[in-house]
């Protein structure tokens, strides 16, 4: 409530001259730190995967991070802190400022179907970037949930003895690796859509950089 208001009053007297802030500075900082941390986690994760592939393929070394298993593990368990600390701050502020509730709720299946149909016909309006359509709400809520899954499944792979209850919850050590991989795949799929749409609607990218 107070933080967002302090960073950018939605309607200042000169609102006509200066458009309102869509993303306060803490959201933008969280977003780009998270982007960096995720690239490091995904790149090093691919290199780690290559040491013992779950499926019949490996990731090309050119797009993986760390050069060998030991290097990739160092990256993964360093970027982990950036991801988790940044993520905790983001979730705390998202809840405390009411941003999550305001931006992501309410969400009704009917609206999702309606907006999805409109989006596929290319008729979804983007006039007001401060308000998310139902498909956006669904995707952002989904990615938040996926973030929880990838962190918890990662913890259960890292500490299958100390956190053995968590590891059991994910079906044991071997299965937790598949869950961790599936969550990564979901995040990469989200990234493809997310980045594509931000390029198709450049003012949304601009808003995440300069705030408005």
């Amino acid at each position, binding site marked *: 409530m107070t933080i967002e208001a302090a960073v950018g009053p939605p309607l200042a007297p000169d609102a006509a001259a200066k458009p309102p802030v869509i993303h306060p500075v803490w959201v933008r900082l969280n977003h780009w730190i998270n982007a960096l941390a995720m*690239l*490091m986690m*995904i*790149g090093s994760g691919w290199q*780690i*995967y290559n*040491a*013992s592939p779950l499926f019949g393929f490996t990731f090309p*070394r*050119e*797009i*993986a*991070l*760390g*050069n*060998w*298993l*030991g*290097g*990739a*593990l*160092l*990256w993964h*368990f*360093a970027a982990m*802190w950036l991801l988790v600390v940044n993520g905790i701050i983001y979730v705390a502020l998202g809840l405390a400022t009411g941003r999550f509730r305001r931006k992501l709720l309410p969400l009704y299946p009917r609206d999702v179907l309606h907006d999805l149909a409109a989006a596929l016909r290319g008729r979804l309006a983007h006039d007001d970037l401060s308000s998310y359509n139902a498909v956006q709400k669904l995707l952002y809520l989904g990615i938040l949930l996926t973030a929880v899954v990838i962190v918890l499944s990662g913890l259960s792979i890292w*500490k*299958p*003895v*100390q956190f*053995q209850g968590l590891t059991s919850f994910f079906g044991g*050590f*071997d299965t937790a*690796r598949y869950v961790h991989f599936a969550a990564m795949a979901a995040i990469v799929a989200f990234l493809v859509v997310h980045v594509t749409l931000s390029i198709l609607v450049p003012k949304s990218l601009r808003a995440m950089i300069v705030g408005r």
Partner: protein
Amino acid sequence: MSRQRKSPPGVDGKLLIKDAAKLMPAPSRRLFLRGALSVGALTMLTGCDIIDGDTAENALRVVSDFNDGVQAFLFNPNRLAPEYPESAIKRPFPFNAYYSEDDAPEIDGDKWQLEIGGRVENKKSWTLPELYALDEVSQVTRHICVEGWSAIGSWQGVRLSDFLKRVGADLTSKYVWFQCAEGYSTTIDMPTALHPQTQLTLKFDHRILPRAYGYPVKIRMPTKLGFKNPKYVTAMWVQNNDGGGYWENQGYNWFSGL
């Protein structure tokens, strides 16, 4: 960012590093992070080398040391690794090392002795019959490799904490260092050495440890990654300084707890 090394004019430094990385044999690759920085996703994103390889490597090692502390804090000395039924044992249990099975040490058990040193009262070496005569404990636990695969195995031997007490080890020491026949080594923290499931292992699946699994002695600890479980052990040292290890010195995380 300052770069210490400059490529000769007309030479693409990145390509040089890329080629050099290919030439280096995987296990002895000491400059792994420099290669990582030139070919990794980060560089593709920014189009520059970001930071000098040494700086990045040092920074990552600092975080790895920090992670040792976090893992020591998370380690509960009373929490046991899950045990499994005998039917869950992986057969054949995989052989794994940085060399092929044919190159594994072939040790003459009649001549072999376990050397004991460092902060212990009784530094007498132990023969195999002497070790076989000690009380036996057994476990069926999951061996988890740093590579990501895992396999359930069955190990029998002497509880390491009992053995350390028997030789009069100073249990307030910080580390136990193990030396192996092929030159492998590793160091573990004392709390892990005293964990009830940490075992001076003499048998696999109730039979004398075969050569592939570390004859005559391996150290089994289900609370650490596989590479921290040394095979073909020839010496055990109780000490206050970290003796490092074969993989640890190349960049694997030191604590590597599970």
